[in-house]
């Protein structure tokens, strides 16, 4: 926290208008899952085989200068030199979030040493059935859980990251929070799914109104035991209590193609250097407030958490709001409690085979 705070204050003192907070380093696109809502892995085989070298990763990290490095992908544990990449970033005293589905965590954990700089951010999309349907793999939850337990046993820092789509059950998500905290993870991260234009599935992305309603139901009347590894103001943004403009440069992305324009989610071309990215991107054309249809539903951390962090350090009011949001986390709300009683219909609960049988039975009954 202190590292991030001092970094942001330095940027403010230097009057730097646009600065990166977290580098999203994608060392490969290959994955051992094929989630329908993911827009990161839809490439031909020759692209999926490509990897950034450790040297390319270090060059990008040094060029960018952000104090935190998130390593998503693809599945980073499938990278042939992920241990060297992590080792080099720890040596640079970067705070690393290695984002993994944890299917390989138990097998590969021996490659890493516990460090305050290294956190395994395990992709868990909710309770067992929700997670397995979300990642399109039966048994995915149990395998991830085994990985988490092993990492915790060995003294690693572990957080979870959860992406929610339309049809998410807020009661189930709240029970999932209990389960994760009981397991011993350090904190949890949340985000609504972004409508990747390359994702196979294009029907279950939350719009902004429904996102706010869902997160209000989930995050109001919060339990004291729940710890979130996110800006408290960003969580209030998700609940509809704050409005932010997008900060797409806050979490710049580097992968085998180069520096992605304009952000982690949207692919509108690539720059060859970080400086070129910052100077040649038409930033005003992005963000919900720009009217760009590709940004219309986005409330994702990669665009808006940096906005929340920026508010914290922009004024005394922002700092006080953050202190308040950190100390008073309950967010008691009667209306939100009622939202928890509303019926939900998770998409995976629809069994087309059963529906066909029921429809057929009803037809027979009406014919009788």
């Amino acid at each position, binding site marked *: 926290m202190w590292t991030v705070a001092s970094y942001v204050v330095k940027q403010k003192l230097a009057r730097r208008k646009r600065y990166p907070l977290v580098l999203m380093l994608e060392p490969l696109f*290959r994955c051992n899952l*094929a989630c329908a809502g993911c827009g990161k892995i839809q*490439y031909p085989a020759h692209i999926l085989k490509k990897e950034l070298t450790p040297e390319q990763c270090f060059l990008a990290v040094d060029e960018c200068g952000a104090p935190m490095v998130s390593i998503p992908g693809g599945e980073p544990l499938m990278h042939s030199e992920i241990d060297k990449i992590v080792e080099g970033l720890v040596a640079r005293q970067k705070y690393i979030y290695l984002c993994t589905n944890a299917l390989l965590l138990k097998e590969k954990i021996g490659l890493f040493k516990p460090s305050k700089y290294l956190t395994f951010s395990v992709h868990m999309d909710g309770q067992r059935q929700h997670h397995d349907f979300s990642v399109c793999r039966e048994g995915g939850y149990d395998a991830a859980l085994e990985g988490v337990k092993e990492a915790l046993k060995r003294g690693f820092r572990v957080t979870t990251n959860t992406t929610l789509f339309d049809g998410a059950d807020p009661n189930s998500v709240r029970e999932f929070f209990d389960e994760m905290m009981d397991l011993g993870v350090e904190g949890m991260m949340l985000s609504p799914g972004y409508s990747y234009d390359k994702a196979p599935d294009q029907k279950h992305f939350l719009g902004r109104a429904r996102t706010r309603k869902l997160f209000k139901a989930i995050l109001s009347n919060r339990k004291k035991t729940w710890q979130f590894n996110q800006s408290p103001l960003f969580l209030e943004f998700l609940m509809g209590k704050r409005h932010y403009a997008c900060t797409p440069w806050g979490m710049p992305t580097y992968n085998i193609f180069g520096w992605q324009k304009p952000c982690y989610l949207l692919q509108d071309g690539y720059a060859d250097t970080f400086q070129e990215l910052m100077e040649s991107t038409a930033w005003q054309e992005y963000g919900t407030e720009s009217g760009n*249809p*590709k940004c219309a539903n986005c409330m994702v951390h990669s665009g808006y958490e940096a906005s929340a962090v920026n508010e914290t350090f922009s004024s005394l009011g922002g700092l006080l709001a953050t202190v308040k949001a950190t100390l008073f986390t309950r967010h008691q709300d009667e209306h939100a409690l009622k939202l928890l009683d509303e019926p939900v219909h998770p998409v995976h609960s629809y069994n087309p085979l059963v529906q066909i049988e029921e429809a057929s039975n009803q037809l027979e009954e009406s014919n009788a």
Partner: protein
Amino acid sequence: MTGPADAKTIKDADSLEVAPGFAHEKLEGWVPDLAGEEEVRQALEKAFDYRGDVTITRRDGSKIEGYVFDRRTGKTLADSAVRLFPKDSDKKVSVPYSEIAALAFTGRDTAAGKSFEAWVRKYWEKKAAGEKNIGIQAEALE
């Protein structure tokens, strides 16, 4: 590929219940007619959005097959270029629009037919057949 939303949706972004998503055209196997400048620009924009490989034939007759990951558009075709990773190389290649004689969407669309509904249906069908460890397999690399 066509866009996700009309102007109304953009204006009403904050009241949007469900994001409309993108409607993907079936481009696999398509060979666009590059009759004029506008056709060239539109076709290469679609190549940039495509989730598979394309084959570009240059004006000198040479062919290059690969994945288009970037396009940089300028005022003229000579100022504009697509950048791609050839199928058989690790070196990025840039091809000016003005040098492109033909374009074909030769590779498979790697995401077509993999909707969430398709997965849920497959799951319940396999479950009914008594299968276990049901899942969608990641893309094969060979």
